[in-house]
């Protein structure tokens, strides 16, 4: 299976008052077409930063220092890190989408659901919408009997506008007309078409009464509904990759199950790949095809989900599985604390807490090696 996205040696640093936080030091992972890659790790290990950096949305004071993020387009691979803003804006929301942990924070409280979801269509599906509008206008023109009616003139004018929009979307004239209070009503048709598409996608999200929901404000919806709206926004334009950053962590268990089911179903229908970020191993087991384990800014193990659960190789992964609470079993936590990323441990970042630490570990950073088929580990135990 070919790779859709290939992240190579991604290095991200944050320049703060207290020092330079070396958040990601050479992250390597790849996502294949149609698969769900899980990214698991403790809070602060760099999972969210990785996802945001793929979209070049690293929050300041962060900077992407090195690395490549190769996205497959047509027959070639394009390095996203070398592209300009305009290119990235095209990608965001339509080719690669992202959803976040708190749905109530992700939705703007002063705009309706319609406004926010339609926005995606208006930005990325303008052409399609224009064509639909033009069809509607032609229909309306045909329905009019008289030759000199005012309405006919208005419709012809609107037709002209939309034709122009189709040909030259960035025309200066359109920008000006947009601002004039009464004139800008022509946009209603466009918004109307976008709204239809919005209702459609909300229905696919299994939101009941989508015609009603579109007019509501985010705070009027429950957490589960809000998250469905967020997912609708993300999937509106059929992205090839959906990145989900702990989307169910803030929801209750029942809703969580519903949302996971939804994501699974949609993945099947839309055929997109999913990068699922979480710290919950149970969700990983349910949702993912392959899993990457991150620790302190490094991917330390990458394998198929069954393989990882059956035979974890990296000491950190083993410790993670050991730390899962089981009734009757003694709770084993991982000794030590998460390292300070301003002054991280030398060599392998896990070495201060590793039960199997060797002499070489503090000296050399271990590289990812394919120890078994499809099972990669970055640990000196396995590099012989």
């Amino acid at each position, binding site marked *: 299976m070919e790779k859709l996205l290939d992240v190579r040696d991604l290095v991200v640093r944050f320049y*703060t*008052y*207290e020092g330079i936080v070396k958040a990601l030091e050479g992250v390597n992972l790849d996502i294949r077409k149609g698969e769900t890659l899980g990214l698991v790790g403790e809070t602060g290990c760099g999972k969210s930063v990785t996802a945001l950096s793929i979209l070049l949305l690293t929050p300041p*004071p962060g900077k992407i220092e090195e690395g490549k993020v190769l996205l497959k387009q047509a027959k070639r691979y394009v390095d996203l890190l070398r592209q300009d803003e305009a290119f990235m804006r095209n990608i965001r929301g339509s080719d690669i989408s992202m959803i976040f942990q708190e749905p109530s924070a992700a939705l703007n409280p002063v705009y309706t659901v319609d406004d926010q979801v339609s926005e995606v269509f208006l930005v990325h599906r303008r052409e399609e919408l224009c064509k639909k509008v033009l069809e509607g206008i032609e229909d309306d023109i045909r329905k009019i009997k008289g030759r000199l009616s005012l309405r006919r003139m208005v419709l012809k004018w609107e037709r002209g506008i939309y034709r122009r929009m189709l040909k030259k979307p960035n025309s200066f004239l359109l920008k000006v007309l947009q601002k004039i209070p009464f004139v800008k009503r022509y946009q209603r048709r466009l918004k109307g078409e976008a709204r239809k598409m919005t209702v459609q996608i909300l229905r696919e999200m299994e939101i009941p009464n989508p015609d009603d929901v579109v007019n509501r404000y985010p705070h009027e919806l429950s957490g589960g509904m809000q998250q469905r709206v967020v997912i609708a926004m993300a999937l509106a334009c059929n992205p090839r990759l959906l990145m989900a950053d702990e989307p169910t962590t803030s929801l209750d268990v029942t809703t969580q199950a519903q949302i996971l089911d939804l994501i699974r179903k949609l993945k099947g229908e839309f055929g997109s790949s999913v990068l699922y970020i979480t710290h919950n191993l149970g969700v990983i087991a349910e949702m993912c095809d392959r899993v990457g384990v991150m620790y302190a800014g490094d991917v330390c193990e990458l394998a198929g989900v069954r393989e990882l659960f059956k035979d974890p190789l990296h000491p950190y992964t083993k410790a993670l599985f050991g730390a899962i609470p089981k009734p009757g079993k003694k709770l084993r936590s991982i000794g030590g604390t998460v390292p300070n990323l301003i002054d991280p441990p030398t060599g392998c970042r896990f070495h201060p807490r590793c039960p199997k630490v060797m002499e070489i570990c503090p000296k050399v950073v271990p590289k990812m090696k394919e120890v078994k088929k499809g099972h990669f580990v970055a640990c000196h135990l396995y590099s012989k």
Partner: protein
Amino acid sequence: MSLMTDPISQIAFALALFALGLSILKLLSTSRLTVLFGARWTKFKASMKPRMRELKFSLRRVKDSPLSIVGICIIAFFVAIALLAPVLARPEDPDDPYRIPRDGFSPTPRPPNENHRFGTTEGQFDIYYGVIWGTRTAFRVSIIVVGAALLIGLVVGSIAGYYGGIVDEIFMRITDIFLAFPYIILAMAFVTAFGASLDSVMKALIIVWWPSYARLIRAEVLSVREEDYVEAAKAVGGSDFRVITRHVLPNSIYPVLVMASLDMGAVVLVAAAMSFLGLGAPVGYADWGQMIGFSRNWIVGPPGNPLAYWYTVVIPGLFIFFFVLGWNLLGDAFRDILDPKLRRR
């Protein structure tokens, strides 16, 4: 340094200083006994470490912000002038240094010359003397007003916020009423009742200014009251007073510091305006606002030289402007530095 003549103002000032000293001591102290040496000293140092680190961090942020450095320099400059006033401008009458010496009685101002460094204003009052001693007046007025308003507001606000209930409601309605009026307008009314003088202005301003501090403290106390460490302190058996002073107040102090620095300038602006309008310092008193009041008739000079009397307006005004600017810069810098949300970047 002779400060004030009115016994009420003297008491208010002394109280303000006393309260300030007490709160500083409380803030810094971590153990009741005076610590001298040995294991106690290391424990003291260890417990001070996080505070010192925060302090160092704050100082570094101060260094990084050029505006706050400018503010501090300006204020230091004025402090120096105030302290050195008797040297810089020797008073004619040591018992009444705030009376500006007059060189004649002619109404026309005279430009800067060798006898009068900044010239003289209407009635031949020496401008240089006026602005130098005016610095002292400015500090006096702002420290007394802000100090007293702070004290009263502190007491009222912490009681209202801490005890809540009907006490809170009553106090808050009272502050609501006061806050319905712009400061200067209400102060004008009080000064009319008290009779026009600098002391009346100070009293009026204290009455008008304390509600904003009460409001601020109350809001802080309310948010801090619900914090876990207050619960813990109460659970361990701390008395109300102890809980308030040791736990609630130190954490509420930051916005108050910000407001106090900004108010040091604001008070001077209002007091100067009152003196300018004729409701404050008497004629010939060393007060910046009063001096600008003199220049009202001399804004436009004789035809052909309309800016002839610029020095009567510009010089005292510049002093006010820079004084207030210094405190505003400082207060703004404090706000940015001490705001916990904006601190960590």
